């Protein structure tokens, strides 16, 4: 057996050189690549874990937000229901109040219209009564009517208390109003009759007013004695109106 020591040495060197070369060009780069991939995978897994944790956090936040929104929505619905109920009650009350006001207004309108109609009827009745009285008076002698009505006026004057008579007649001018002009004799007789009853000198004037229909009226600064048919008609119409008002109020 022969061993070639040069070959043995060269082969040992060759293998050692091959070890160095493969370590330089094979193992080191490949191990580095594997480690880099492992590091990238670890980083990716860490990133995925972080993303998952973030997603879970966001999901929890969204869930909480949804819960809060649902609670808000329920609260808003309750508020809207309450507001709607309040509006409904208020509208009902307003409608009821308006209806009552409209009813009151209608009643007042009806009452006012009835009063106006009544006044119009009273006016027409007074006018008609005056016309009727005037037509009836035309059938009687004016002197007779005047004499009777003036006598009644002087009776009223005589019936007044002395104190009232003194306060009403203080010497100021008086006017005797009649529906038709008086003759001079009638004026003299009227002047005499009044002068006897008054406590002061008489300052008397005469006027005509056909609206009195019949009778006479004595007018002064502090006195107004009415003894005419017009005054009687007015009294009667006033009583009728008062009776109607009392009946309506009752």
């Amino acid at each position, binding site marked *: 057996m022969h061993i070639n020591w040069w070959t043995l*040495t060269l082969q040992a060197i060759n293998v050692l050189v091959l070890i160095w070369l493969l370590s330089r060009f094979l193992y080191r780069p490949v191990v580095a690549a594997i480690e880099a991939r492992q590091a990238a995978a670890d980083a990716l897994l860490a990133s995925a874990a972080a993303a998952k944790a973030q997603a879970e956090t966001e999901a929890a936040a969204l869930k909480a937000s949804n819960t809060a929104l649902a609670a808000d929505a329920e609260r808003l619905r309750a508020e809207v229901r309450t507001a709607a109920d309040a509006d409904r009650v208020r509208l009902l009350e307003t409608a009821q109040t308006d209806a009552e006001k409209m009813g009151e207004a209608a009643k007042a309108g009806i009452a006012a219209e009835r009063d106006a109609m009544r006044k119009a009827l009273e006016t027409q009745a007074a006018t008609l009564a005056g016309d009727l009285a005037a037509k009836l008076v035309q059938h009687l002698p004016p002197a007779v009517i005047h004499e009777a009505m003036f006598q009644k006026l002087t009776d009223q004057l005589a019936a007044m208390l002395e104190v009232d008579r003194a306060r009403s007649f203080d010497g100021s001018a008086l006017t005797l109003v009649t529906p038709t002009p008086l003759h001079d004799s009638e004026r003299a007789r009227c002047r005499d009759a009044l002068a006897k009853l008054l406590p002061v000198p008489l300052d008397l004037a005469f006027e005509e007013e056909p609206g009195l229909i019949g009778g006479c009226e004595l007018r002064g600064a502090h006195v107004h004695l009415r003894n005419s048919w017009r005054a009687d008609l007015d009294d009667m119409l006033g009583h009728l109106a008062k009776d109607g008002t009392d009946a309506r109020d009752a």
Partner: protein
Amino acid sequence: MISSPFDTQVLLMVGPVPITTPVVTTWGIILLLSVGSWLITRRLALKPSRAQAALELVVDMFSVQIRETMGVAPAPYLPLIGTFFLYLLVANWSSLIPGVEPPTATLETDIALALIVFGATLWFGIRALGVNGYVRSFAQPSILLAPLNLIELFTRSLSLTVRLFGNMMSGVFVIGIVLSLAGLLVPIPLMALELLTGAVQAYIFGALAMVFIGGAVSETTSIQQKAMT
């Protein structure tokens, strides 16, 4: 074809240095592996190509084997063990190329490989425990076993050499004899068997290297653990 198992054909002389066939073949293998590795690893990417994925698979397989066999981190031993396996595999399979004789079928190459394993065992053991500690490790578990441990240190290297040389040389010789007797196509089944033998021998050599170096490292570890207790 090898005329004698112990003869090496000298191709040229460089001064007093004879350049034999296995040396030239080994240079070719070095060129092939180095250039191939450089071509594949010069463009490594995070998303690997098919070649890169295959290479990573091979390197990862080496790392797993080292970790499982030696029970240590594979990084310091990966270049040595991986190169043993790759070189032996390519060298053993180089017999498939017509006119090429595998370098491992010569005794010098196998002795050189066994000496490298021998040196690596000493280097890693001494690096881990120091010279004195490593020498004392031969007296474990008893001083009576020191001679046997010392003899084993050399004989296992010899066994590495003889095993590899015997298997590869015998395969080459058998194929050569059958080829000379039976013709061109008859040795093909034997060549296929030689492929299997070459792969098995490469794995066995690498595995035994891991076991020897791992034994030194594990002895060191056990001594350190004993010292700590």
